[in-house]
């Protein structure tokens, strides 16, 4: 299978160039730069402690919510659990706008406080960054921890009921050991996600007390055009990401993407005031998630008909970028998965996961450094965005495709070998039709992530070019909040619809 090897090596080469190659370019450029000023140290400190606090808060709040979801059955439980998966493809800037509508100075919380004769709150600053991170990661943490709860065999709870266990006994015997296994992984995943936080910090943070390293890279780049400083910061960012990723590889990371979470286990414990506690937990969590999004819908719908032309234009660009990114992502993922399966090589797959540790802004800086002497980087804004987005979605695509492909080869490899089904024919007649589901899912994920991404585009875009998230951010910067809400609603719908179309396309008429 020389073609598998060639294409796989090519795809791996692209990934290595994008992650390590850009890093080398960055390091080379950083050589002449001076050391860090106090602002840079502040950014490093803030990045670390906000990620730690966001992870701790998300997980601490997720534990009671997951416990309530694990031991209660109620109408709408399945929908709520599905909804917990939604923030993953929710554009960050849309969520930020929704949170502003609830927690901002003009938001409903401040209105209520004013009405009660108290001071309004502001969401701008470090606490806004934390709130937004908890908004995104509380659902993820809940799903991860819920999985742990559902992994406790139902028979144990039956046994506990027959032995007359009190809730505290159940906690001590079953739940505490389970949490001890699941919680470290969940903490690390969220820490890693928050470490590369850019769009949230861009929109809500900033200033000496709420600037992440990613944001500092952007500012060094965009405001001061200090490539050396940007490069130095990029190295720090990569080191932090790689460090966290290395620790994460040693801790078992629970998978939160799987199905089956809407299963409910029959429980005999948890009566009395625990009912009240669970209702409160589930209710508050649902409110925290649903309210900001409802605000976007409420404010955006009336404005939808009068969307500015610039928004429509940006939406068109975003669709093109998102589809290209999905295509690029799959074109990288399939050859890597094929090579990993053919060689049975964990190393190949591991290289594919490199982009977990990389950050979009670092890759962006590196690409800029490389491209700058040759041509106008700003002309490449959209292709670079599509490529970087594809690289960021690659780990998820690999996670879906590699096991599926391994299964296909185990089940049908001998038959295909026997018939001489090889090369292109094997790809077209065996792999493609049997990979439809994971292809649809990961393509949809890549498209939706790219659709909502507000990252590397901010570095490269000139004032005339904008993707929809960037255009929306510009509207917010100009305090045109109603237009921003309408653009946000459009962006939210596009992200969900594009994911749905891909995912659906993989399921329709798919044979078991």
């Amino acid at each position, binding site marked *: 299978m020389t073609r598998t090897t060639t294409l796989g090596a090519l795809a791996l080469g692209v990934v290595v160039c994008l992650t390590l190659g850009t890093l080398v370019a960055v390091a080379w450029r950083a050589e002449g730069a001076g050391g860090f000023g106090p602002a840079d140290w502040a950014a490093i400190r803030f990045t670390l402690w906000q990620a730690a606090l966001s992870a701790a808060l998300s997980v601490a709040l997720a534990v009671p919510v997951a416990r309530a979801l694990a031991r209660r059955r109620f109408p709408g439980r399945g929908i709520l659990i599905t909804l917990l998966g939604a923030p993953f493809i929710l554009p960050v800037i849309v969520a930020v706008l929704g949170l502003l509508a609830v927690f901002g100075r003009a938001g409903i919380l401040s209105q209520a406080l004013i009405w009660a004769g108290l001071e309004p709150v502001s969401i701008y600053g470090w606490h806004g960054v934390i709130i937004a991170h908890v908004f995104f990661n509380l659902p993820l943490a809940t799903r991860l921890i819920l999985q742990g709860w559902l992994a406790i065999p139902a028979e144990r709870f039956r046994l506990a009921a027959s032995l007359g266990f009190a809730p505290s006994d159940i906690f001590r015997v079953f739940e505490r050991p389970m949490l001890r296994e699941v919680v470290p992984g969940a903490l690390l995943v969220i820490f890693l996600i928050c470490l590369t936080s850019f769009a949230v910090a861009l929109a809500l943070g900033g200033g000496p007390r709420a600037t992440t390293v990613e944001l500092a890279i952007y500012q060094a780049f965009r405001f001061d055009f200090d490539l050396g400083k940007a490069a130095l910061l990029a190295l720090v960012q990569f080191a932090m990401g790689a460090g966290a990723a290395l620790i994460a590889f040693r801790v078992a990371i629970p998978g939160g993407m799987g199905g089956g979470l809407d299963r409910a286990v029959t429980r005999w414990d948890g009566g009395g005031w625990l009912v009240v506690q669970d209702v409160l937990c589930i209710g508050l969590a649902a409110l925290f998630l649903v309210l900001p999004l409802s605000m976007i819908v409420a404010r955006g719908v009336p404005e939808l008909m009068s969307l500015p032309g610039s928004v429509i234009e940006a939406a068109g660009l975003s669709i093109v970028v998102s589809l290209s990114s999905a295509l690029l992502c799959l074109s990288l993922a399939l050859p890597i998965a094929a090579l990993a399966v053919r060689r049975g090589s964990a190393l190949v797959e591991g290289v594919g996961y490199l982009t977990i540790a990389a950050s979009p802004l670092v890759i962006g800086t590196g690409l800029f450094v490389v491209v700058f002497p040759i041509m106008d980087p700003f002309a490449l804004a959209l292709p670079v965005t599509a490529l970087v987005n594809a690289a960021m979605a690659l780990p998820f695509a690999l996670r879906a495709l590699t096991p599926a492909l391994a299964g296909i080869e185990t*089940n*049908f490899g*001998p*038959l*295909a*070998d*026997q*018939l*001489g*089904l*090889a090369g*292109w*024919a*094997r790809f*077209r*007649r*065996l792999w493609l*039709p*049997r990979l439809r589901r994971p292809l649809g899912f990961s393509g949809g994920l890549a498209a939706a992530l790219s659709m909502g991404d507000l990252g590397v585009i901010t570095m490269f875009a000139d004032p005339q070019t904008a993707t929809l998230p960037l255009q929306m951010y510009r509207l917010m910067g100009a305090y045109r909040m109603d237009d921003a809400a309408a653009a946000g609603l459009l962006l939210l719908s596009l992200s969900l619809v594009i994911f749905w179309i891909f995912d659906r396309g993989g399921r329709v008429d*798919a*044979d*078991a």
Partner: protein
Amino acid sequence: MLTLEGMRVEMEGFTLDAELSVPTGARVAVLGPSGAGKSTLLGAIAGFQPVAAGRVLWKGAAMPAAPAKRPVSMVFQDNNLFPHLSAFDNVAMGLSPSLRLSEAERVRVGGALQRVGLNGYGDRKPGRLSGGQVARVALARVLLRDRPLLLLDEPFGALGPALKAEMLSLVADLLDETGATLMMVSHEPQDARLIADHVVLVAEGRAHAPVSTGEIFANPPEALRDYLGQA
């Protein structure tokens, strides 16, 4: 003639040695306790199981490495059909894996389906076929591939006794038409009596040379007696 010349398969905690030949046109049942290496033996002949020592020869020449290039059709225990392809396409794979068929080839595929009694079932995918029909589709493909050596690795194991007898008689008819040599793994001595003129006994890490079916059941060696549960 198929010849296994000092062939040795080594797997973790398991070896299988074979020194035997099977005459062209013979119908051989491969019998023996589970785990003795019956499937491994067929896998080595078909090119799926790497051989640690010795050679696999067909008509005195070593077989090529790639399974598809060997003079062999193999029907597996399961996963004999691609679930996403129609019965017609599954059979057509035997002629052209790329599924680019000439009109004459399409007629041959239709003919093969008809021969195994599946006229009109060509459009169906395996999910809408019964277990017996699935086996028939696999046999139709064997017919089209027209290789001189047919290896059956218990493909009818999941079928009931009556259906299984029907399939074995279909296999016997197809062998009459093509003159192919058969090696069939089975758990059941009854299968051997139905279709095979020779038996290869696989036991205790060794594939024994074929013995005629009548003789081996009249005077079973100890390993076979143990397996059959006879005193």
